[in-house]
């Protein structure tokens, strides 16, 4: 791969299985991707897609069942994480109501990480907190407020300030705006963009909202039932989605203008239920809902096909094309 050397985070064949009374749940299965410094990778998926499990494995809340995670070219999976590493990877959760301790003031919430990682001398913590609040566009006197007194958007800003307080190089954003109104969402997204430019921090942005993804991510990875279906640059992906699932996904998005309507792939109306992760279909997980199912689909799990340097798709449909292409190129060489 091209980004091999300069990647900040590299995930190779990551697996995370959970044992439940109903059987083994393959929450994340054979997932590989990389994140470059200062870029935003969008991780899109519906429920049961494993996007949150993948994120929790990256931040170290879960240990992977198999596979490896490299951060700044060091293997970090399967061992205890150093304090420095914990500082370097942060997370902002989905529900701002639950991510701030209701019994602490904003000052207490932000003091803990500053103290823990000795970001500034103890005497300057107060000033640093006010600086952080200014950074996330909150008034300085919010330092005395409690989460109950804040609006949802303001709470999320505080959560972002907390993640940012320790100068991480990677922040995992787990649906940071799904609990917010569009107006608040727009504000938070703008803020995240500005902060990224200022501090060159990389984001893994998890969401199920494709329209939002189009606007925030430089590259997107689409997941379905624990596996990746397609990874591409955002612009390419929305111009021409390849995997049948991603086509169905885009065609299901409710949109507000004609121009957007035109982007939806025709003839891909959504059908079928998302299977339960305990009772996974054989072969490609999407085949029971796929309008272009081939014979091979329920027998064999599709492998990664590189369409070009920046694009991979996991679908049998494109295998033929690919073989053809390879054959063509060998012909030409001869």
């Amino acid at each position: 791969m091209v980004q091999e050397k300069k990647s900040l985070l590299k995930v190779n064949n990551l697996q995370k299985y959970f044992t439940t009374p109903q059987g083994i749940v393959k929450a994340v299965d054979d997932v590989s991707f990389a994140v470059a410094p200062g870029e935003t990778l969008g991780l899109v998926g519906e429920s049961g897609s494993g996007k949150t499990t993948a994120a929790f494995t990256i931040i170290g809340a879960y240990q992977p069942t198999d596979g490896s995670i490299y951060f700044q070219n060091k293997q970090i999976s399967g061992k205890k994480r150093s304090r420095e590493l914990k500082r370097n990877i942060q997370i902002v959760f989905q529900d701002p109501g639950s991510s701030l301790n209701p019994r602490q003031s904003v000052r207490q919430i932000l003091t803990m990480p500053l103290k823990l990682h000795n970001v500034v001398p103890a005497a300057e913590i107060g000033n640093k907190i006010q600086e952080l609040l200014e950074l996330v566009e909150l008034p300085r006197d919010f330092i005395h407020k409690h989460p109950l007194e804040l609006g949802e958007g303001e709470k999320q800003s505080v959560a972002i300030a907390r993640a940012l307080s320790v100068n991480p190089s990677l922040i995992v954003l787990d649906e940071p705006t799904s609990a917010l109104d569009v107006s608040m969402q727009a504000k938070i997204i703008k803020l995240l963009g500005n902060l990224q430019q200022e501090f060159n921090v990389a984001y893994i942005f998890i969401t199920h909202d494709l329209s939002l993804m189009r606007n925030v991510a430089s590259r997107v990875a689409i997941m379905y039932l624990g596996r990746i279906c397609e990874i591409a640059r955002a612009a390419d992906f929305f111009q021409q989605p390849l995997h049948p699932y991603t086509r169905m996904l885009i065609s299901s998005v409710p949109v507000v203008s004609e121009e957007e309507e035109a982007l939806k792939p025709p003839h891909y109306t959504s059908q079928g239920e998302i299977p339960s992760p305990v009772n996974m279909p054989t072969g490609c997980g999407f085949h029971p809902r796929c309008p272009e199912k081939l014979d091979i689909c329920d027998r064999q799990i599709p492998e990664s096909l590189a369409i070009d340097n920046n694009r991979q798709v996991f679908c049998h449909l494109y295998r033929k094309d690919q073989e053809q292409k390879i054959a063509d190129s060998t012909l030409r060489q001869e």
Partner: protein
Amino acid sequence: MNSKKTEISADYKKKNWLRRKETLQRAWYKFSANILSVVGLIIVIAVILLAVFAPWVAPHPDHAGAVVDFTATMQSPGAGNLMGTDGVGRDLLSRIIFGFRFSLMMGLVVIGLAAPPGIILGLIAGYYQGTKIDTAIMRFADIFLAVPPLILAMSITSVLSPNIFNAMLAVTLMWWPWYTRLVYGLASSLQNEYFVQSAEVMGASTPHILFKEILPNCISAIFTKITLDMGFVIIIGASLSFVGLGAQPPTPDLGTMVADGAKYMPDQWWLTIFPALAIVFVVLGFNLLGDGLRDVLAVEEV
């Protein structure tokens, strides 16, 4: 720069005070919506005041001890002795007022001893839910919960010598698991909250997570339980005294008084009825107050 700082902090103090005041007002609004809670509060305050100022309030403070006045035995309630006198001529009202002291002390000491270890064990077990630590702590607590409380307390006090100190010890031993259970339930659900996970990801120490993140969110439930438990502990203490395993004469204990008076039923009814009513009064007060607190301290949805 410096003056600006002090200005900000003075302004902050004022605002903080105003906010506290508003929180209190809001709490009182909720609390006073239920008239029974207010009754409970008044009873509890009254009992506490009586107990604290007993030597000044009681008509015959010296009657709390071993006083004998044969000129005034078994007087029925009247102008001289509002609740009558007992077999050795002591004023019953004074003894009941001093009895509150022992009841409250019993409650405070028992809960003071039982709650802290119970809470800490509960926090640990809840945070490590599903691990061996959880199993060890909770099964240990279950052993204590499996024995009927009064029986356990009775056996302990009868093995050791029956006095108020041993009674408290016995009740403490059977009381801590209830706090462990309560906090365990809260902590095990709180450990899934994002703010706890966020502290973990940040690299915060386990004591920080237990005491700074989880414990403050359990305080209101613990507080409610303590208030309700005051009543129950007082009843258990009185029961132990009633069967002769608690406070020993001449200590003015409500349970002992009921037991002593029972011999003279029904002729000298006041000897039993008044101490018994006093117990009912205290326990009812704490229970009503506890219910009221539970309403107020339930996490506020704005």
